[in-house]
């Protein structure tokens, strides 16, 4: 991709932020899952933005995602756990780091393999979200520490897989990276 202009960064951050908001508001962002709690993919726009346009864009989309989840938790709670997210320490702060972490990991791994870099960035960004949000819940004493590992296993890991798949497919399609035998035509 050619060097990205400032205006372009603003536009991409805004539109991807809107996707995050939309995924949350329409519940498209929640994939039903066996553990009862739905898998969420609302953080995937943050990862994609960070990979495409750099850490600052990722940070800003994370901010939009976080602030929106705060507002939604307060105005239109969708589930019981939403109550926790009315605290900006839980809903905003951890989300700021998703983008920068995903970008760093992507920059590191892409030198070896571009597609692998995308997948690892998806996993890393997603785990950043899971671990920091749950960690913050633990620190604030909402959830006992012992209850956290099962949540990470049951939700965090499938979420990481889901976000890696979506990141790879969307970014590969956007940057026209040919994947596999069919050169990407099967996705």
């Amino acid at each position, binding site marked *: 991709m050619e060097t990205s202009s400032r205006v372009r960064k603003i536009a991409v951050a805004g539109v991807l932020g809107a996707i995050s908001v939309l995924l949350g508001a329409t519940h498209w962002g929640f994939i039903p899952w066996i553990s009862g709690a739905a898998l969420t993919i609302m953080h995937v726009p943050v990862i994609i933005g960070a990979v495409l346009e750099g850490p600052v864009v990722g940070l800003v989309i994370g901010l939009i995602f976080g602030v929106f989840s705060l*507002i939604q938790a307060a105005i239109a709670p969708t589930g019981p756990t939403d*109550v926790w997210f009315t605290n900006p320490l839980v809903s905003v702060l951890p989300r700021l780091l998703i983008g920068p972490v995903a970008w760093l990991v992507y920059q590191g791994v892409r030198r070896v393999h571009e597609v692998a870099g995308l997948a690892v960035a998806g996993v890393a960004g997603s785990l950043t979200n899971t671990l920091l949000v749950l960690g913050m819940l633990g620190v604030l004493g909402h959830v006992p520490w012992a209850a956290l590992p099962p949540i990470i296993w049951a939700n965090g890991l499938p979420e990481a897989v889901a976000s890696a798949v979506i990141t790879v497919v969307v970014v590969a399609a956007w940057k026209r990276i040919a994947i596999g035998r069919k050169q990407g035509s099967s996705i």
Partner: protein
Amino acid sequence: MSEFDFLGQVTIGQYLPGDSPLHRMDPRAKLLMALAWIAAVVACRSLLGMALAALAVAAGLWVARIPARFALRSVWRALPFLALLAVLQVLVMPGNRTGAVLWQWWIVTVTTGGLLAGALLVARFVVLILAISLLSFTTGTNDLMHGLEHLLRPLQRLGLPAHELALTFDIALRSVPLLALEAERLAKAQASRGGEFGGAKGGAIRRVQQALPLLVPLFLGALQRAERLALAMEARGYVGGRGRTQWVALRMRSADYVALALVLGIAVAVVLV
């Protein structure tokens, strides 16, 4: 066809138009007040302070003439879970086992410290929900964005792009309805070709695969939209925030300062009491 109506589900910025003193206040003052409020409620450690905070929020709702039924709707929805959380706080959290022991049975110990922690938890969340709702009820999104940009302006000296940040938020807010329409079109297109979504079975990969036919075009369409938007902005000579003037000039009136001082005072009191 209601399952395709994504636009109707987007309920952010529940603005209630009105002409109360709170509605007419400067958005900057309202933003600062909301921030001070959230910080105070999160930091508050005593029941008295929390009661003060709850009373002040109730007064705010009354001044803004927000119907109580309307304001309490979101609190009502969260209440069952709040109750559960409070019970857990009282019964399970060992850190709260301070104060006099009121009742003991097997591993369950109810102490005054535990009861206090439970009550504080419920009160804190109710006040937070009401405070954030109050801001969004009385302030339209346009005003909020304006206020945000002005508030961030002093940080521009430190290199923070205040104007750009506010613009990004604005683009995001304005894109949501457009993307919702696009999502609706995509879902209908997939459904008309026999695609199914929701209620799917299978592992994580399988389920993500079922979501991909919707997500990928949604993302790619959005990125294309961003590209066109950037091109259009550049073509019209957009150069960022420098030397930009505004159609609506914000002006802090004396009433705004008084209200802000009042709320800051109460916030400090809530933390210190």
